[in-house]
């Protein structure tokens, strides 16, 4: 009798201890964000508590055919060891989703002695329990060689291990779900940032009636379509509309590249056929195999009301005369990016379109192939009908009305992009109360320049900036200051961002806004810690610190734009316009 009471008491105490251990571990699991550390400490406690010589926690890898040891306790370090998931005693435990005591391994045919051979350890008895949540298998915990007593694990040990394992399994599942959510959020934010960058590549809509207007509506966050237009020195306007094959982030990147290239090369190459040929060379050279871009590019002369265009495999531009007659211009050449050799020496074929009071429209195929709300395709006819009924609206409103009829709810088929050129913009539309204000107010003058991050190239940047500021009539007394601080900011990027001369780029944008001069510098180096950008004391004149001092002296605002998703550091500096 006496012995039974002792046993009972002992059993009760043991139970209480077990529950406490369970509760502790449960709390740890709920609290910790670092699942690996938590599992290690949990395994150690379980192994100690159950009095085993060693223990190991295995996790099933992706395809559930391999068990990898995540952590272990005891003499033999087998972390990282992999086993086949159907192998050995632990494999059996996982497959059958059931705990097991193997009192003497020499009696069990499933026992795999090869691990012992490698580690020099001798396994005599095994206790194991699966890590699973309902039917979802995650892995297993295995304890080896009970210390003391008869060296055998008992049923109480097994029960306790099973309960602890369930708790651990739940914790692992939770941690995995949490990290998947974080990944999804990250991807979402990267796409949003890419979309923002793409939007910034689209030209700003000029205030007031202007011969050209465009509209871009991506189907998903990022677009494979784009359009652009910008004025040349002589008042002619360079324009384009393009469509990248494919969808998603690859298409978006090729879109950004093509749009930037068009703008960059188009400033000096004013022959559309040649410009497209150069674009074609660049894209053939560097684009992912199999991707291509259809593009219409051209120059519009508002004085002669004529557009000269070249068409690389794109939807035919559509001309509408003031009398309501239509004409379309089929492409005679393939898209950009197919091959260089198939384009004739003097470039893509060009042709002139006289507008004479009429208008010209460029579309992506998301417009003509778009579905109406009733399910029919809009088609070329549909576009013409809309243009007919909205002929007396302003250009921008006309473009919006074409798009408005398309069904954009639900799963959108394609990006929608449309660009219009109107040779009589000032006669149309309710703008400024129809006071007949003149067309073509200039867009914000803007310099976009890029240099490889090399000391030898700073001179080019200085010249480009100086020339731009002189061209736009920026206050002469301040021009050298601005040139200096852009040089200094670039030096900081070279020195601190790239760690010396590098083939990576520095992008420079200077815009003369009404409120003042806005300068943006982008580099692709590691993130900058703004707190570390402090000007030095003059006693400690070193090139880097002095440069920052200059920047702070001359500019009114300096700061980094928030950096997200790996698109580089963007430094923004503003010099406010002074009241005269």
């Amino acid at each position, binding site marked *: 009798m006496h012995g039974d009471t002792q046993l009972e008491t002992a059993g009760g105490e043991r139970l209480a201890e077990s529950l406490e251990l369970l509760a502790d571990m449960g709390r740890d699991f709920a609290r910790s964000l670092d699942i690996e550390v938590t599992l290690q400490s949990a395994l150690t406690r379980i192994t100690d508590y159950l009095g085993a010589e060693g223990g190991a926690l295995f996790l099933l890898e992706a395809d559930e055919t391999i068990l990898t040891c995540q952590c272990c306790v005891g003499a033999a370090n087998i972390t990282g060891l992999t086993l086949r998931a159907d192998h050995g005693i632990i494999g059996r435990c996982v497959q059958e989703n059931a705990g097991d005591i193997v009192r003497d391994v020499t009696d069990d045919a499933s026992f795999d002695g090869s691990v012992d051979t490698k580690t020099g350890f001798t396994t005599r008895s095994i206790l194991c329990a699966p890590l699973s949540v309902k039917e979802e298998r995650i892995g297993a915990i295995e304890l080896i060689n009970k210390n003391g007593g008869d060296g055998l694990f008992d049923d109480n040990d097994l029960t306790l291990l099973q309960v602890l394992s369930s708790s651990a399994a739940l914790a692992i599942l939770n941690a995995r779900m949490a990290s998947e959510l974080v990944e999804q959020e990250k991807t979402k934010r990267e796409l949003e940032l890419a979309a923002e960058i793409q939007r910034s590549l689209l030209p700003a809509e000029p205030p007031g009636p202007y011969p050209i207007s465009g509209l871009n509506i991506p189907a998903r966050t990022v677009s494979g379509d784009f359009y652009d237009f910008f004025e040349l020195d002589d008042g002619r306007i360079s324009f384009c509309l393009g469509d990248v094959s494919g969808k998603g982030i690859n298409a978006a990147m090729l879109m950004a590249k093509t749009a930037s290239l068009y703008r960059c090369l188009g400033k000096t190459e004013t022959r559309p056929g040649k410009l497209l040929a150069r674009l074609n060379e660049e894209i053939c050279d560097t684009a992912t195999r199999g991707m291509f871009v259809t593009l219409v590019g051209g120059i519009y002369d508002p004085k002669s009301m004529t557009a000269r265009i070249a068409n690389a495999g794109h939807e035919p531009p559509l001309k509408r005369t003031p009398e309501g007659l239509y004409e379309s211009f089929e492409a005679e050449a393939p898209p950009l990016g197919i091959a260089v050799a198939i384009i004739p020496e003097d470039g893509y074929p060009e042709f002139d379109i006289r507008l004479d009071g009429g208008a010209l429209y460029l579309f992506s195929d998301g417009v003509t192939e778009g579905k109406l709300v009733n399910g029919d395709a809009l088609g070329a006819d549909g576009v013409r009908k809309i243009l007919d009924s909205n002929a007396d609206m302003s250009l921008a409103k006309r473009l919006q009305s074409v798009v408005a009829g398309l069904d954009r709810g639900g799963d959108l088929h394609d990006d929608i992009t449309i660009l219009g050129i109107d040779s009589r913009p000032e006669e149309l539309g309710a703008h400024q109360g129809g006071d007949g204000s003149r067309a073509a107010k200039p867009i914000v003058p803007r310099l976009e320049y890029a240099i490889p991050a090399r000391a030898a190239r700073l001179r080019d940047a200085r010249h480009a900036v100086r020339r731009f500021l002189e061209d736009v009539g920026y206050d002469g007394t301040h021009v050298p200051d601005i040139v200096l601080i852009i040089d200094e900011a670039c030096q900081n990027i070279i020195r601190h961002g790239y760690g010396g001369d590098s083939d990576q780029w520095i992008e420079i944008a200077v815009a003369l806004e009404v409120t003042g001069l806005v300068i943006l510098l982008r580099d692709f180096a590691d993130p900058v810690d703004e707190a570390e950008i402090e000007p030095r004391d003059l006693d400690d004149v070193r*090139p880097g610190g002095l440069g920052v*001092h200059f920047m702070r002296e001359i500019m009114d605002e300096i700061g980094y734009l928030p950096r997200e998703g790996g698109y580089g550091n963007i430094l923004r500096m503003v010099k406010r316009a002074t009241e005269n």
Partner: protein
Amino acid sequence: MEHSIRDDGGATVVELAGDVDLESSPSARTILLECVGNGKSVYVDMAGVTYIDSSGVASLVESFQSARAGGTGFTLIAVSEEVMRVIQLARLDKIFTIHDSLSAARQAGD
């Protein structure tokens, strides 16, 4: 950046011309330090300097400090308005000895 070095009455006159920027300031630094190291007073003729940045200014400062440490003279002459602006921005206009010309410097005893 180009430079020339000549002797004038026992002092060294270093003429600098062109942009003294990140690319060329290391060589300006080497040249100036070497001249200062010879133990003679150095006059830096900046008439031909079209641009200077913080790295160029730092080269001047280093040579100036070296001359001070060695007890020899270091003077800037013929500094243009633009270059002066940068030196003023660096608050070094009261630190350097600056004169319009070599004769003016000598007259002032520098």
